[in-house]
């Protein structure tokens, strides 16, 4: 049986594994966003915490992924939950760091102008800092999501679902079709995520702060 036939015959199974895969990666990402973005903001307000917290995050990043998954087992048992928890921990760091840097790179003079005009602290955050940090945060989410989709294949090793199950089963049975029917969609998902996030960034960034400024317009209308 060739690969095409294999995929055709097992389409339902592959599709549901792909679905699980997406759910695992996105859940981890979503949970990480809930925690990491506010944490990143907090760090910009409590400068003295920034160094130790970002340092701790870096340490988590250095733990090998399989080992981290294994650490989760005694606490959360087997299945998707420990996998999501481990991926969540990985996702925290890049998102938190990008939120922090994104806000820190906002020009202090903008913030001073805003405060001088009577914006309150939360208005400065929502109207100025977060929108201007947005492309940084989104870039963090983009790389994180791609990594999470890759690492979500490991969930199968601790009893979770996802495309890792196909790869794992293929490895134990030395069934290449099975391995590839897990690996190809996983790679495809990662590419797709990257592409979609890129599109999202273009759509959501206001014209005024897109990196490629509209030079022609500038020249044509330059009165001074």
């Amino acid at each position, binding site marked *: 049986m060739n690969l095409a036939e294999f995929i055709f015959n097992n389409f339902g199974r592959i599709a549901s594994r792909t679905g699980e895969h997406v759910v695992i990666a996105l859940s981890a990402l979503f949970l990480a966003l809930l925690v990491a973005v506010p944490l990143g903001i907090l760090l910009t307000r409590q400068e003295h915490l920034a160094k130790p917290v970002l340092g701790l995050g870096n340490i988590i990043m250095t733990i090998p992924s399989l080992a981290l998954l294994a650490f989760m087992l005694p606490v959360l048992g087997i299945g998707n939950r420990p996998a999501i928890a481990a991926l969540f921990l990985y996702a925290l760091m890049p998102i938190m760091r990008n939120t922090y840097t994104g806000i820190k790179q906002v*020009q202090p*003079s*903008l913030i*001073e*102008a*805003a*405060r*001088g*005009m*009577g*914006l*309150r602290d939360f*208005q400065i955050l929502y*109207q*100025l800092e977060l*929108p*201007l940090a947005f492309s940084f945060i989104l870039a963090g989410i983009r790389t994180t999501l791609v990594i999470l989709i890759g690492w979500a294949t490991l969930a199968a090793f601790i009893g979770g679902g996802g495309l890792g199950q196909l790869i794992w089963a293929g490895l134990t049975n030395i069934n290449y079709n099975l391995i590839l029917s897990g690996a190809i969609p996983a790679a495809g998902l990662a590419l797709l995520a990257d592409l979609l996030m890129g599109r999202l960034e273009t759509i959501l960034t*206001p*014209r*005024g*702060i897109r990196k490629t*400024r*509209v030079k022609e*317009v*500038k020249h044509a*209308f*330059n*009165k*001074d």
Partner: protein
Amino acid sequence: MVSFVEVSKTYPNNTQAVNSFSLTVAKGELVVLIGPSGCGKTTTLKMVNRLIQPTSGKIFINDVDTDAQDPVELRRQIGYVIQDISLFPHQTVARNIATVPLLKKWPDDKVRETVDRLLRMVDMDPDVFRNRYPSELSGGQQQRIGVLRALAADPEVMLMDEPFGALDPITRVQLQDELKNLQQKVNKTILFVTHDMDEALKIADRIVIMKDGQIVQAATPEDLLRQPANDFVRTFIGEERLIRKPDQVQAHEVMLRNPACLEAGKGLRQGLEAMREARVDSLLIIDKRRQFLGVVDVNTIQTHLKQNKTLQEIMVDWPTVGETDSVKTAVQLMVEQNVRFVPVVNNSGKLKGIITRARVVNFVLDYM
């Protein structure tokens, strides 16, 4: 009206930035703060909208103590423009201008109306510019929007910290004119900080010169130019800008530096030759150390030409002025002694130059 009463600010690092600053800015007055870098101009400004809290002293706006007001509400009543143009880059021109009106929850149509009216006031077509982003404007246009943003909620008081500092000279002058126009139209009380004396002289109703956190002099541009309080103010304004009376100008500033002169021991023929060369009818006679001795005129030389004499023997005494004497003294001397010129000497009698009637006339013309 803004009143500072004995306002001081010492930063936590013990820098005394402002020291017992007292000033009342009348309603509708444009006061310019100027002074060397670090003299406390920005600090003074920021204490008005409470971005900085004074260490001591009080600031009143229309007789209300600013300390008694909520700082955020206070700031929304005060226009604020800073040097880095600081428009919000992710918001359109219209949204930028509408910042404070939106904070104050004005109805949409009133906000739109205000934005369009303000844009028209600085000759920027609302239909063209409303939806532009700051990055799509020239520097001068951006700064105009910065000023409009501060004006939008119609504040009575405006604080402007070197708003035109980053602009090229032509645009700067243009914006100064516009501001002056605007000021007459909208009658705001404006506190304006600058480094640029020409800018201050041009736009100010009153100039406040600061040094080390204190006011050195506060006066109208006219009074400042006529009566600088001290040497600091004088150098700060720049000698060339000062308006001075003839008794404030020294002889050496007006004199010709290379008068026709010859040593006393030379003969009459040499004297005549020197006069011809310099195209003058009188020679200043000096000794070997350039000490001034007297004057010989062409007629006297002609009369004695046949005799074998030195210049010294036929020269006559002549009144002189010191180089630090005033031009007025020189002119008085010329009138009293009925002479057409006076030599200028230093305090050891050395010849430095000459003041002639033509020179005095030119000087007077320069200052008219």
